[in-house]
């Protein structure tokens, strides 16, 4: 079973995302900000990371940059999932090593389509 780490400061979003991912037969874990996510990844790398952008303590972009310079940090497939929906944010995220990008609001079909494209399904 593949594991997906859901990183979002909103408990509601984490719950919705986890439910969708579990229906897609993922094991899920949660982190409330980039710092918590980075600590989790240093312990062990998940297969996938669904990543919010705007979070307190450490935001999604800082997290992604830090992750990609960790040992084994190239491995997880990172899918941004954020309300930032302009082309500049998207290209910045891709430049920092994001594999896919979801513009909120999202639904099950979008997550499924995106995960399929990056080979997680």
């Amino acid at each position: 079973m593949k594991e997906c780490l859901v990183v979002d400061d909103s408990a509601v979003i984490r719950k919705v995302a986890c439910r969708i991912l579990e229906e897609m037969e993922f094991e899920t874990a949660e982190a409330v900000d980039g710092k918590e996510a980075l600590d989790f990844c240093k312990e062990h790398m998940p297969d996938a990371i669904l990543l919010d952008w705007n979070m307190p303590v450490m935001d999604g972009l800082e997290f992604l940059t830090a992750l990609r310079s960790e040992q084994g940090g190239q491995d997880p497939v990172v899918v941004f999932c954020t309300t930032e929906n302009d082309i500049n944010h998207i290209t910045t995220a891709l430049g920092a090593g994001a594999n896919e990008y979801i513009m909120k609001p999202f639904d099950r079909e979008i997550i499924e389509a995106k995960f399929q494209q990056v080979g997680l399904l």
Partner: protein
Amino acid sequence: MNPGDYEFIGQLLKQRSGLVLAPGKDYLLESRLMPIVRERGLNSLDELVAELRRPTSESLQTEVTEAMTTNESFFFRDNTPFDLFREDMLPALLEARATRRRLRIWCAACSTGQEPYSLSIILKEMADKLVGWRIEIVATDLSSEVLEKAKAGMYSQFEVQRGMPIQLLVKYFTQVGDLWNIDAGIRAMVDYRKLNLLEGFSQLGTFDIIFCRNVLIYFDQPTKATVLGGVASVMAPDGYLLLGAAETVLGITDAFKPVPNKRGLYAPTTQVSETLRDSAFGSAIPKLQAV
């Protein structure tokens, strides 16, 4: 809805589009037709049916048929067909047509354009292999409304996220407010035409690749056979037909056979006979008489 009205709408849809309205689809009628009810200032589906029964209801009948036959569409829907296009059909045909350097592709139920645009993007991405080739994409649909949307190439955030990889979104779309507009260069690769599959299509010429996905499922067996016979008659002998995941030619027509181990992909069997050609195009569907 009373059974008489339900049957009336069923007959109307069958005659005008071939769509078979199974019993118990009241929810579908309601969700698709209530917008028309409201738009026309009517109060209920019953009133809409009463309007449809009037002898002067031609344009309303068209509107209702279009509303019932419109499908949601995704970019790169189901992935496999597009992999087959890129990795099987194109390599074979690029070799077979190396002298003429010409290919014709038909999307037979293109809806709001996601399928032809997905094919265009694949072709654009491999442009270096296609120098000197002339590749035409003809995309048809029954509904003028979806064709207008397809031509405009303007999609919501939800629509572009269902299937369009983010790198390709960035590369081939421009953000316009909340919407995403596909590049003029990609739009120009597709020739959109309004077409009812039941009225024959020999005027389109012949094709090397035909995508006819998720449209046969709405037809009954004889109609499926007629449409597939027609498709065979406009297809190159070494061409390819792609059907939707839930569709097949087996038990319906001998004109195509499945390509082994390639899900959804079919090849024409032999030279299509004149008889088949005639039966496919001999009779246009008569206009529905008001009752």
